[in-house]
């Protein structure tokens, strides 16, 4: 009884600040990891919606062959910005910066991250990067039109604002690195007494693996981006064949970062899945250590597969089959995770609340995304499918169906803890069902289109592709409606939802053992860990009200 009870009179972190200011300044100058997490939520959420609107415009353009609402050049800018915003401003920082910031210290049983001021600085660096992206849109020269991969030689020759936009990506990389080293140090130095590495929740394990990729891979894109800027400014010739440079070398340098970066995007999502599943299956995760180690394995092998993006760029056959083999090897730890998740549900006491529904969606969508990854990872099929809609579909199934779905799942799971209020469960369920239908309508036709030969990044297409393009566009509208329902439901809950209890789902990790929302220093008691992370025998002591 004395263990989990919390004094009701304690102030929450909303009512108590780390600085002497009140109002907006208490947020802008805060070093509280929870407030910083929320600052990230609002800004990243905002950019996500911008990315969605750009995507909708692209889909609308593609509803009929020929020019529909925008011209070809605008379309080039649309897909570039959609990519840059969704990748650098939403998916890469999304889960670690929002949920990682908010829950990493709480799940470790400590009061903050290792470097709280550096944490706030990371947010400002993120904002500076985001503002630079926005400035590059309005400056003369026009918005960047290279695609988010900034391939040489076009990125050096085009007259659009490439330098500023990619410098923004450099700045955002800085933010990513700072968050990464902050998390690694926090995990090593600030675990509560009794919390060994193998008592850490799996979300922490995945954040830890992610943080290492951020620290190891991001500097490489940093230097590559600087070189593109130098090429544009001084014409040094590093990537220019006329001066002896090698444009393929750019592709290598770019993907040395950007392939590990897709694991930066997906690993935290896998961690959230490993949190949600045990809570709603009321049993411990199946294969805790296998999931923990597979995160590290993905982080490690993921670093060695980059050239599978370059099978058609003229690299040697030896390089191609080695990279193809390594690509297949990444599928192993990913498969380990999927099987363990499904096995966790087996004989569980399943409670189908909204977060679980999203996770089930995720397992389905991510499996399709993962398996089609093997299709494009095979040399022979990739020659046919490279640079077609098939790749676009694969990428969206993994990134949106994977990380995007889990972003929403995480929001639904942790919303009561973060805001202390509960959303409307019925509408959340409706949204989950709609989302699943909309998602497959929007992206599955792209697999078929790609197989039929529709190239990516084209604003026009042959008449025989019309039907599938139309289905996809209608799917995008349904997706927009779903997102509106989700956002409205959550905003309404944040303002007027009924009060959530400390443990609305019956979770047993440490964040469910404090008030909703938590107090400024996270716990009103001394935290000591003497359980495995998903030991549901604790549930009796945790005053879980199963109603």
């Amino acid at each position, binding site marked *: 009884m004395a263990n989990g009870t919390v004094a009701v009179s304690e102030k929450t972190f909303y009512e108590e600040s780390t600085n002497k200011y009140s109002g907006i300044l208490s947020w802008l100058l805060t070093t509280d990891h929870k407030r910083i997490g929320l600052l990230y939520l609002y800004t990243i959420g905002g950019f996500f919606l911008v990315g969605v609107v750009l995507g909708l415009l692209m889909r609308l353009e593609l509803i009929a062959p020929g020019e529909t609402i925008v011209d070809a050049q605008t379309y080039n800018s649309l897909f570039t910005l959609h990519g840059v915003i969704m990748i650098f401003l939403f998916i890469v920082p999304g889960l670690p910066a929002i949920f990682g910031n908010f829950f990493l210290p709480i799940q470790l049983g400590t009061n903050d991250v*290792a470097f709280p001021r550096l944490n706030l600085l990371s947010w400002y660096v993120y904002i500076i990067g985001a503002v630079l992206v926005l400035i590059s849109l309005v400056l003369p020269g026009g918005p960047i039109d290279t695609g988010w991969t900034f391939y040489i030689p076009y990125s050096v020759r085009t007259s659009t604002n490439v330098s500023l936009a990619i410098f923004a990506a450099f700045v955002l990389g800085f933010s990513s*690195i700072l968050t990464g*080293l902050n998390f690694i*140090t926090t995990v090593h130095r600030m675990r509560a007494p009794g919390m060994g590495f193998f008592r850490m929740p799996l979300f922490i394990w995945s954040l830890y693996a992610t943080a290492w990729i951020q620290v190891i891979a991001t*500097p490489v894109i940093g230097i590559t981006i600087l070189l593109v800027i130098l090429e544009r400014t001084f*014409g040094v010739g590093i990537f220019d064949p006329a001066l002896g440079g090698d444009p393929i070398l750019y592709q290598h*340098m770019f993907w040395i970062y950007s392939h590990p970066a897709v694991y930066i995007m997906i690993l935290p999502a896998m961690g959230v899945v490993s949190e949600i599943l045990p809570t709603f299956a009321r049993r411990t995760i199946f294969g805790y250590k296998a999931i923990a180690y597979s995160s590290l394995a993905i982080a490690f092998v993921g670093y060695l597969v980059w050239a599978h993006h370059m099978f058609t760029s003229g690299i040697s056959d030896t390089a191609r089959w080695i990279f193809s083999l390594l690509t297949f090897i990444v599928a192993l730890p990913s498969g380990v995770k999927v099987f363990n998740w499904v096995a966790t549900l087996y004989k569980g006491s399943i409670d189908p609340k909204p977060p679980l529904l999203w996770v089930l969606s995720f397992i389905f969508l991510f499996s399709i995304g993962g398996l089609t990854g093997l299709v494009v990872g095979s040399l022979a099929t990739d020659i046919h499918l490279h640079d077609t809609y098939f790749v676009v579909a694969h990428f969206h199934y993994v990134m949106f169906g994977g990380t995007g779905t889990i972003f929403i799942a995480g929001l639904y799971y942790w919303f009561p803890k973060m805001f202390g209020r509960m959303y409307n469960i019925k509408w959340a369920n409706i949204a989950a069902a709609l989302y699943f239908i909309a998602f497959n309508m929007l992206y599955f036709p792209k697999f078929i289109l790609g197989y039929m030969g529709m190239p990516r990044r084209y604003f026009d297409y042959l008449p025989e592709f019309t039907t599938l393009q139309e289905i996809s566009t209608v799917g995008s509208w349904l997706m927009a409606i779903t997102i509106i329902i989700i956002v409205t439901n959550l905003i309404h809950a944040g303002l007027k939802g009924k009060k959530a209890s400390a443990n609305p789902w019956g979770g047993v990790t440490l964040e469910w053992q404090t008030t909703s929302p938590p107090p400024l220093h996270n716990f009103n008691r001394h935290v000591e860990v003497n359980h495995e992370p998903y030991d549901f025998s604790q549930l009796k002591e945790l005053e879980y009200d199963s109603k």
Partner: protein
Amino acid sequence: MTQNEHTVSSEHSHAHVHRDDIGAKMGMWLFLFTELLLFGGMFLMYAVYRFQYQMDFKIAAMELSVSMGTLNTIILLTSSLTVALAITAIQKGNKFLAVLNLNITIIFALMFMVNKYYEWSAKFEHGLYPGSDEMLSLPNGQIMFYGLYYIMTGLHGLHVIIGVIILAIMLVLVIKDKITSDNYVKLENGGLYWHLVDLIWIFLFPLFYLIH
């Protein structure tokens, strides 16, 4: 209820003066790791082009002044010694020696930059800079050599400037007694950064000046 015994509210006021020197150094090492990888990308490209244009690299390298490079190497290595001496001094509570050694380090760093300035201007006078007619008339491999030379030593020079700023801040903190014999992790971290700058140069020097 024994609630109050368990609450940590009494510790709240101390929560943010919480100090973890090992953690601070761990963070710094991770940051240095990212710096190594930043330069690592460049070293990778150097390796690729050196392999591709062996003769051109050899010829172009002869144009660099080995004596200037050696002088700068000696300056930078010595400055790494003085910053280490400054740390030892502050550990032993000798503020005067710490301030003196930090000042010497900064002076060495500035000397390095002055030398670099003369070295680069000499090249510029001969028309050897990216995009010049003189440069474009050279064989491709030599253009690449000079391109890498300017980018890598330029990026290194930028790090020297950042290092000087960090050392200057450390100097102020030592003077103001913010860095003392029982709280010197900031100076250690500043020193680590400076050793990194030195370390990168130790690799740049032979790669550009010595391999003929």
